[in-house]
Every structure is written in C-alpha cells, then in structure tokens.
C-alpha cells in the first residue's frame, strides 16, 4: 500500500513537472517565435532567405546537441554559470525553448506568409503600420498558429536527451516523464516504463484535444 502510494505520488509529480516545463517552454517559444515568423513574412531584406533557410534547418536540430550547448553555458565555468540554473527546471525550459523555437517560428512564418499574400493590398491600402499588420496576421492566422504551438508542444513533451543533460533527472527535482521512462527502461522495469509511456501519450492527446476544443478549431466554417 505504502509502495503503491509512493508510486502514484511519484507519477503525479513527474507528470505535473513534465506539463509545467513543456507548457512554459511552449508559451515562451510561441511568444517569441510567432511574432518573429509574422515579421519575417512581411519584411523584405537581404538576409531574409538565409534566416528562413536557417530556421528550417534548425527545426531538425538534435536535442542532445542543444542540451550539451545549454549545459556548457550554464555550467559553473560557463558564461552564465553564475545564475546557478544547471539541473533545475528552468534549465530544462531553456533547452526546450531552443529546441522548439525554430519549429514554431518556421510554421508561423509559413502561415503568416500565405495570409500576407492574401491581405497585402488591403492592409497597405488601409494605411496600417507594421506592428498592426503583425497583429492582424497573428490574430487571423491563430488557428494555424495554434497548430504550430501544438507541434512545438509535441516535440517538447517527448524530448529526453537535452533535459536529461541539463536537468540531470534528479528525483523530486527535475525528473519528468521521458527521463523516468529512460531510467525505468535502463533498470529493466519495462512494464512501468510502458505505463509511463501511456501516461505521456494520454497527456499529449489531452492537451491537444483541450486546445482544439477551447479554440474551436475546425468548427469555424472554411477556416
């Protein structure tokens, strides 16, 4: 009974921490990536194509490499080591933001680019300023942007390499679902690892359904 209780508490703890870290990272990456994507869609400058190509390339950046770089930055001898963030949930959030930012920015850029092609003449004709144009694109493209955010969430919640490196998989501190799965598998507890995997999938689906339900995606006529 005592063991089962501890198991459930532990499961609850890692599930909540997984959600906290991933949702925080998704919100932060969306707040940065979406306006940037919209800005990129309606701004013409020399390096634009290079930035877009770089963003697209970074969508597939290996999380382990991101983890390593964040580790080096946050380690005591690193440039921001004084902040003492290594092996904390904040470090995990930083790593996840770096991993999913290119994905969200790139998808946001694509959504806003199509919308900008449609709205270009109208918004210029109405005398809008650049910030106003970005606001209009973000609002009217919100459903596609929501999908971008969910794609980011999906990539982040299933991520293990980077958060293992920068979080350290410390019990009651930085252990999340994915690192727990890795740990239990290495210990040979395949049944428990599989159960954790099930929880992870249910969690991911629940967030996706909740967001779609709340935002009424696919219900608003042709958009």
């Amino acid at each position, binding site marked *: 009974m005592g063991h089962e209780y501890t198991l459930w508490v532990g499961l609850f703890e890692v599930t909540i921490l997984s959600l906290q870290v991933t949702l925080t990272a998704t919100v932060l990456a969306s707040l940065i990536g979406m306006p940037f994507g919209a800005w990129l869609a309606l701004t013409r400058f020399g390096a634009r194509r290079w930035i877009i190509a770089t963003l697209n390339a970074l969508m597939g950046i290996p999380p382990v490499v991101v983890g390593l770089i964040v580790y080096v930055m946050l380690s005591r001898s690193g440039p921001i080591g004084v902040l003492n963030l290594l092996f904390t949930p904040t470090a995990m959030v930083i790593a996840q933001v770096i991993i999913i930012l290119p994905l969200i920015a790139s998808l946001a850029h694509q959504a806003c680019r199509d919308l900008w092609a*449609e709205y270009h*003449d109208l918004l210029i*004709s*109405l*005398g809008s300023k650049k910030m106003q144009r970005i606001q209009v694109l973000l609002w*009217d493209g919100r459903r596609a942007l929501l999908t971008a955010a969910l794609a980011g969430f999906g990539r982040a919640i299933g991520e293990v390499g980077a958060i293992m490196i920068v979080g350290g998989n410390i019990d009651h501190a930085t252990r999340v679902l994915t690192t727990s799965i890795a740990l239990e598998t290495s210990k040979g507890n395949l049944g428990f690892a599989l159960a954790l995997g099930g929880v992870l999938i249910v969690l991911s689906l629940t967030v996706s359904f909740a967001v779609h339900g709340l935002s009424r995606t696919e219900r608003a006529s042709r958009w």
Partner: protein
Amino acid sequence: MVESIMIKVEEVVVERRGRRLLGPATFSINDKGITAVIGPNGAGKSTLLRLMHGLERARYGQLNLPIHMNSQQQAFLFQHPILLRRSVQQNLILPLKLRGVPTEIREQEVVKIATEFGLNKLLEQDAFLLSGGEKQKLTLARALIIKPNLLFLDEPSANLDRPSTLIIENAVKVVADQGCKVILASHSMAQVKRLAEDVLFISDGVVHGPFFVQDFLQKPPTESAQDWLEDI
C-alpha cells in the same frame, strides 16, 4: 465653371521586372466628381489606380495629390473583394481600429454604415459566407467608413449582377456628391456614362485624356479608342 485642377501625374512610368506597365503618363484631373479610367484588358487601368493609391511605385515621374487626399484619406475598392477572416462587423471595424478611433465611436459608425448598406442583420456572420454582391457591398462600406476624400474603384461591379451593381453605383454617386473624388476603372461604357464626368483612356500603358465622356464617345481621340469603342 472653373474647377481647380488638383491631381497631377507627370511623366510617370511604372515598371515591373524590366517590363513597362504604364507610362510615361502625364495628366491632371479635378479633385471633385467621378473620373473613369477605361481601356482594353491589360492596358494598365489597375496599375494606374494602384500607383495613385501607393500600392505601386513609380520608376520615374511625379505624382502630386492635394494634402487632403493623403494616404490616410484614401480608400480602395479591389476588383476581387479582400476580406479578413473575421465577421462582417470586424471587417468594418478594422479601418477605424487602425486609425485609433475610440471603441464607442467605432461601434456607432459600424452600425450606421451597415444599416446604409443593408448589412446590419449580417454583422455577426463570417464575411466569407456572404454572397458576391454582399461581399462587394461590405468592402465598399469598409472603404467608406473612414469617410475618404479620394476613393479608387477597380472594376467594382465586374462580377456582380445588375441589382448589386446599381446598389454599388448609387452609393458611389452619393459619396461623390458629398465631395469625395472617385476614380473608377471600368470595362463598361454604360457604367461610365451613368457615373462619370470625364474619362482617362489607357491603351498599352499610354494614358490619354482626360476627356468629357460625351466628347470621348462622339469623337474618340485615338485610333485605339475608336477600336475599343467598336469592340465593346
């Protein structure tokens, strides 16, 4: 009657990717009434309107508009209605919102113009669900909600049936009577006769005129104008 000539286009050339779309164009038109821009397909009518509105840049030349017709005082009605993916109400509100008009005034103005155009019962509806005529009425209402001093109409009734066309034309006449300068690109000489006082004829990017409508019809100024009139 002597009217002041206010809108001047001097030696303007528009090019895109090395191809000349318009010009060199030189003409002056009054700052009141309705001026029609006519000519064959692809002659440069839309380009001229877009240039005057600031949607195209001139490669050379000068465009002089009076101060009361600056970009904030202009509106443009596109041939294919461009609607935001929002409700009718939100489409109408946008120009006022962009200009920083306070919320309560915005709402009053929206109700007022929606009523004028018979859109008041459709305010909550998604704009994309409107019929073709309703869409064009909405875009005209949205253009007029800012009370422009210069209104460009790029073949506003090209895809509309006759009743919808007449509604649009009546609204245009009303705003022109209220002092708004209207520049209308049109294919239809019948529409030009119903609405316009003078015409600019464009052929292969070359602008001729302005001419009074009756003068243009009785004595076409160029061979291309004569051919065009015979063809339509």
